[in-house]
């Protein structure tokens, strides 16, 4: 039988075969099921993926076919990615929380004939899509629960059984298929959620992903046996590179949580060594810790305060190997024993060697919090179009205000408009069926327009200011960087989301979403009764709390000469949470400022015409797709401006 070993391991199916050969018995995937972590070795994973691949072939899957994959992170879904690739097909993971109409666009655009849905929820959506998108033919499901009375579906297990039969009948078939794959072939298609317009299918090749994944792994010294918890959507390029590309290249163990709700517990049980979390999750973790500390006894609270302050002063310096006085060093040791170590353990981060955050600018205080706990938290800057890595913080050279140095083999330049451009081995092949968009984003010599404004500083670190198209000016010419301001607001645990306005206007104003957990907890202590989010959000005392925080942001802004003119003059607290189901956030939870401005036009107008209140009536979409209405009066609040600081002398 001709073995794939004869060729180099330049596709993921071959990497999986290599892992099965060279580290066959070691754990590749773990999944918590029925309360117990179930382990699958590399050899088992390879066999499972092969069975499914042959099953797909038996069902009529051809080279170039697309396989839609939708569900939570599960080993079987990762195997399905590899299975499609074994046959020269292109897997297309889709965001599992997308509603059917959003998903239908992707299925239609990708011209997919096959789809794999994890459970009844996903299968229902796929069936709805199949009714209107005739190209979609075969629907495969993993979890049979609730699907007993469905017809015209294929189960994952049945597909694998067909596959085993085919493999017995034609033993050389799969190896021959795998041997046909080349490094330059398209390996996956990931639809970017896109803050504007329809999603685009980014086509990445094996070489793109494999080289980029290996470069980044070498950069951080990842080794076989490093553990990762894969809990972010499989449709997101980050999960694809960490859990799949790096997983296969390096031999990481990929751990799949039991359910979205158990991630915190699972994190603690696994204790990953390589960890990624978007700023939003890091923020939520801090909020939970802070709330629980507020409820703790007095002694614990004061210990927590003392040692957190100490570690915030010197923890980061210790991590970077800088000099610290002996007294403080000793106290830090004590703190490590009493507060910091246990806290790190509670968060599930005691074993972390490399942790990253990215996606949105992270508030310095959030970032500092983790570093001061002795967690090697770093930032990276990446895009789907770059196979993630553009810049990353080197170990020992972490700077809060930057996103790091160019990753290995990545070139960076800033064009005349201040937009960052990059070129690397990870640069995508094309946008699927969209040559116009491809040409707009990628120059003929391989440079990609990132769409972000920023600059390289003296130390060679990249600093991002904002989305290039979002950076604007107030009428008096003051620089207005909305995200910069929003991030400052969002650091306060009471503020969940903020949207700043000001481009081409006289002053800066903001919409604010309060955090139900944090403000709810605060309200309880203040004896404020409330029955709903809307009621809490319209309480005058809550407004007072938020106004104080906005004033604090103004004081911070006043300290920065470039930003001092862009202080927030007026704001309001929205009566509903911004939600991706209502189109207000992208699926990766970035605010869609233009859409929000349009949707809440009346509120925005009131912010600028001096009114004290405005009326709002808006539709909300519930999780099951039903619609409801939120209606009420929203108070508009003024905030005093802070005096710009003048440096003495």
């Amino acid at each position, binding site marked *: 039988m001709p073995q794939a070993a004869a060729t180099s391991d330049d596709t993921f199916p071959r990497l999986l075969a290599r892992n099965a050969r060279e580290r066959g018995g070691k754990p590749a995937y773990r999944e918590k*099921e*029925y*309360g*117990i972590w179930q382990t699958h070795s590399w050899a088992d994973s390879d066999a499972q993926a092969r069975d499914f691949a042959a099953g797909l072939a038996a069902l009529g899957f051809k080279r170039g076919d697309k396989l839609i994959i939708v569900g939570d992170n599960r080993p079987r879904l990762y195997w399905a990615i590899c299975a499609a690739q074994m046959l020269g097909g292109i897997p297309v993971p889709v965001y599992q929380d997308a509603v059917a109409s959003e998903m239908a666009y992707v299925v239609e655009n990708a011209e997919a004939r096959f789809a794999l849905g994890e459970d009844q929820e996903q299968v229902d959506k796929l069936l709805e899509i199949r009714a209107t998108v005739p190209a979609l033919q075969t629907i495969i499901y993993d979890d049979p*629960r*609730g699907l*007993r*009375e469905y017809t015209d579906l294929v189960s994952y297990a049945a597909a694998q059984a067909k596959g085993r039969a085919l493999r017995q009948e034609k033993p050389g078939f799969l190896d021959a298929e795998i041997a046909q794959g080349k490094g330059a072939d398209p390996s996956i298609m990931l639809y970017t959620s896109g803050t504007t317009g329809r999603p685009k299918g980014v086509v990445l090749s094996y070489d793109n992903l494999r080289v980029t994944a290996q470069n980044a792994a070498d950069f951080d010294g990842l080794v076989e046996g490093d553990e990762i918890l894969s809990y972010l959507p499989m449709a997101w390029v980050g999960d694809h590179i960490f859990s799949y590309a790096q997983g296969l290249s390096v031999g990481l163990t990929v751990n799949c949580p*039991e*359910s979205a*709700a*158990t991630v915190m*517990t699972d994190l603690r049980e696994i204790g990953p060594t390589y960890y990624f979390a978007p700023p939003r999750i890091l923020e939520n973790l801090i909020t939970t810790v802070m709330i629980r500390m507020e409820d703790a006894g007095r002694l614990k609270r004061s210990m927590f305060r003392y040692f957190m302050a100490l570690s915030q002063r010197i923890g980061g310096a210790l991590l970077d190997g800088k000099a610290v006085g002996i007294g403080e060093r000793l106290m830090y040791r004590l703190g490590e024993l009493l507060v910091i170590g246990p806290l790190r353990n509670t968060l599930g981060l005691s074993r972390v060697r490399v942790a990253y955050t990215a996606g949105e600018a992270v508030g310095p205080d959030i970032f500092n919090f983790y570093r001061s706990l002795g967690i090697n938290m770093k930032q990276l800057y990446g895009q789907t179009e770059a196979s993630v890595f553009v810049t990353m913080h080197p170990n020992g050279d972490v700077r809060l205000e930057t996103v790091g140095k160019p990753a290995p083999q990545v070139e960076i330049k800033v064009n005349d408009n201040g937009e960052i451009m990059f070129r690397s081995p990870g640069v995508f092949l094309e946008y699927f069926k969209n040559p116009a968009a491809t040409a707009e984003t990628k120059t003929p010599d391989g440079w990609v327009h990132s769409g972000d404004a920023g600059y390289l500083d003296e130390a060679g670190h990249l600093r991002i200011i904002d989305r290039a198209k979002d950076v604007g000016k107030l009428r008096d010419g003051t620089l207005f960087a909305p995200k910069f301001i929003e991030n400052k607001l969002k650091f306060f645990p009471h503020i969940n989301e903020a949207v700043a306005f000001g481009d081409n206007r006289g002053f800066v104003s903001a919409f604010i979403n309060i955090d139900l957990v944090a403000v709810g907890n605060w309200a309880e202590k203040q004896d404020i009764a409330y029955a709903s989010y809307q009621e809490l959000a319209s309480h005058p005392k809550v407004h007072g709390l938020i106004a104080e925080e906005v004033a604090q942001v103004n004081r911070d802004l006043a300290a920065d000469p470039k930003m001092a003119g862009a202080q927030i003059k007026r704001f309001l607290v929205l009566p509903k949470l911004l939600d991706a189901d209502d189109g207000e956030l992208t699926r990766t939870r970035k605010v869609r400022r233009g859409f929000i401005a349009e949707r809440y036009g009346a509120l925005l107008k009131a912010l600028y015409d001096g009114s004290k209140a405005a009326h709002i009536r808006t539709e909300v979409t*519930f*999780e*099951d797709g039903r619609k409801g209405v939120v209606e009420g009066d929203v108070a508009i609040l003024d905030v005093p401006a802070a005096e710009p600081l003048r440096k003495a002398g």
Partner: protein
Amino acid sequence: MRNRQFTETLLTVENISLSFGGVRALSDISFDILKGEVRAIIGPNGAGKSSMLNCINGFYHPQQGAITYKGVRREQMRPHEAAEQGIARTFQNIALFKGMSTLDNIMTGRNLKMRSGIFAQALRWGPALREEIAHREYVERVIDFLEIQHVRKVPVGQLPYGLQKRVELGRALAAEPELLLLDEPMAGMNIEEKQDMCRFVLEVNEEFGTTICLIEHDMGVVMDISDRVVVLDYGRKIGDGTPEEVKANPEVIAAYLGTAH
């Protein structure tokens, strides 16, 4: 509303009358429950619905009448007999052990199935440990089925009401019942919790073939998920049939659904 056919009788209630002193809670009630169906008992407050369930599982002893369950006719059912014979129930006011975790609460549902003695269980030695592991496995399936993995180790008292109801259903399911009695499983829930609970009730019925007898106030829920409905009013039976038949019954409309004036 569902159109399904059932033939085998699981339980028959014949001419049951129950009084507390001078108060007649139930008078001369007869109906049957077929194997595999979802049977609802509805009626206004004080109509005798919970009393009826209490008679079925032997908590109350009716003065007259008999109950035939799985072919055995009894004048009085005893609670432990009912449990051993595969009847499990949930309560209108949640009756869980508030200080125990979700997992431990559901484990208690397996109690009747444990063979080892109390001391062996307490010491968790040898066969008792093996037995506990086997039961735990079943309980984990129930937890998975009801999607409550995230509260597995949380004391039940800390859980929101809707989840507590779900844990209580879990404990009943852990007994692998043939007949599941649900006393207002959706009372006090918000719409989302109700939808979830409906889904679980239907799935229990379809996946495990468990026969379900439920009391419910929410008419929408009753009409949607039950195969047949019994209507009680002041301890009397005033209607019995499919949801459509019951909806069209003038006496039922007058007593419970309200008339259009």
